[in-house]
């Protein structure tokens, strides 16, 4: 019975933390929001990270960054966020005792697949970095044949310049005759 109560308590505690992870040695916790995202290729989304200082002292000079890993079957790899237009790192000068800091990471979804995003906080005074829970991101592929109305320009402009070219050639030929 005691064992069951203990297991249930642990499960309840884990649920109560709700996407927040704290290491025993750390004075800070970090969470990521939203916990899951369904979007299309080309969409812009914003992840928000909340860093909370749980201690009675201020914490200084934190570095926080977002990471994205592709978990699509057969394509598992960490992603280079430069391609996703995301600012990787934010330097947090100070968080007062029991205060919070909210950071935003806007990004453009440029490839389809399943991903996980998580935010990590590095405090140089602690050996263990603190990471948030993972937020699941599913990006649906969108096939676009004429994005930004590119076709009229891509086909029309060479034809237009060609027409001017033909006109000049015709005019010159007439002049020579």
């Amino acid at each position: 019975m005691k064992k069951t109560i203990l297991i249930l308590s642990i499960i309840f505690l884990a649920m109560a933390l709700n996407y927040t992870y704290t290491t025993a040695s750390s004075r800070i916790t970090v969470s990521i929001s939203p916990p899951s995202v369904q979007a299309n290729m080309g969409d812009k989304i914003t992840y928000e990270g909340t860093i909370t200082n749980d201690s009675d002292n201020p914490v200084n000079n934190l570095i926080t960054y977002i990471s994205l890993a592709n978990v699509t079957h057969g394509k598992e790899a960490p992603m280079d966020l430069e391609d996703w237009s995301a600012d990787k790192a934010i330097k947090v000068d100070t968080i007062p005792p029991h205060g919070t800091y909210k950071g935003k990471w806007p990004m453009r979804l440029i490839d389809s697949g399943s991903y996980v995003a998580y935010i990590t906080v590095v405090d140089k005074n602690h050996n263990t970095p603190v990471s948030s829970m993972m937020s699941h991101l599913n990006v649906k592929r969108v096939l676009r044949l004429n994005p930004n109305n590119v076709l009229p320009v891509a086909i029309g402009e060479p034809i237009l310049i060609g027409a001017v070219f033909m006109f000049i050639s015709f005019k010159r030929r007439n002049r020579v005759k």
Partner: protein
Amino acid sequence: MKTLYIMQKEIRESILTPKGFLWYILTSIILSVLSYLFLTNRELSLLDQGTMLYMIMNFITALGVLMGLVFGSDAFAGEIERGTLEALFLSPVNRMEIAAGKLGAVLTNWGIIFAVSLPYLFIVGKGGQNLLMGILYLGILGTLLSIIFSAFSMGLSARIKSMKNSLIISFFVFLLAGSPVFISAALRRTWFGRILDLVNPFADAVNTFDSVVIDSQGFSYQIGRVAIICVYTLLCIWFLKRSAVKLEM
């Protein structure tokens, strides 16, 4: 006025000809293929719009510079080889006016390339960041780079008097200037790469485009690089002036 006359003559002979117009048709076809691939190809469309715009801007600049080099190499050496420079010297136009007129024609060519590329820039950069600012910088820096490289190759053409040789040397200089494209990003961050980037006007322009379009940095970040490009412009105009004045049959 005489400069304008020479410029008109050059435009009639080099640009407003069927052969000259083929350049612009080809430019437009290449830009069509490039922009369509950027926007629809699965791998290329992974790039964000700022990066696409930046890459198209680099391509347009390189194309303008390359055409400027060819026009510049032909300016005096081509006239000598065709035996038409003597007649030009006998006309009541001094050598500086001839050089300025020819440079004006090269800039007109750049202006046409810029105009041809505008719809593509708008299509690729639509909805993205810093589109208008990027176009403004492309217009200004592209014009300065056209002056730099065409004035240099015109001066060289006047001194060497051989179109083939001045064209080869100009291409070597162009390849050297385009070295940032061949050097890895890691090497460009070393002191050697940084110096090479700083003293190279082409790299300065490319880095300015990067800074303006991708990093959204203001003019204060660009002053140093723009100043270096301006210094090169003045130096190359001076080189052209000296070469044109010394030119003899």
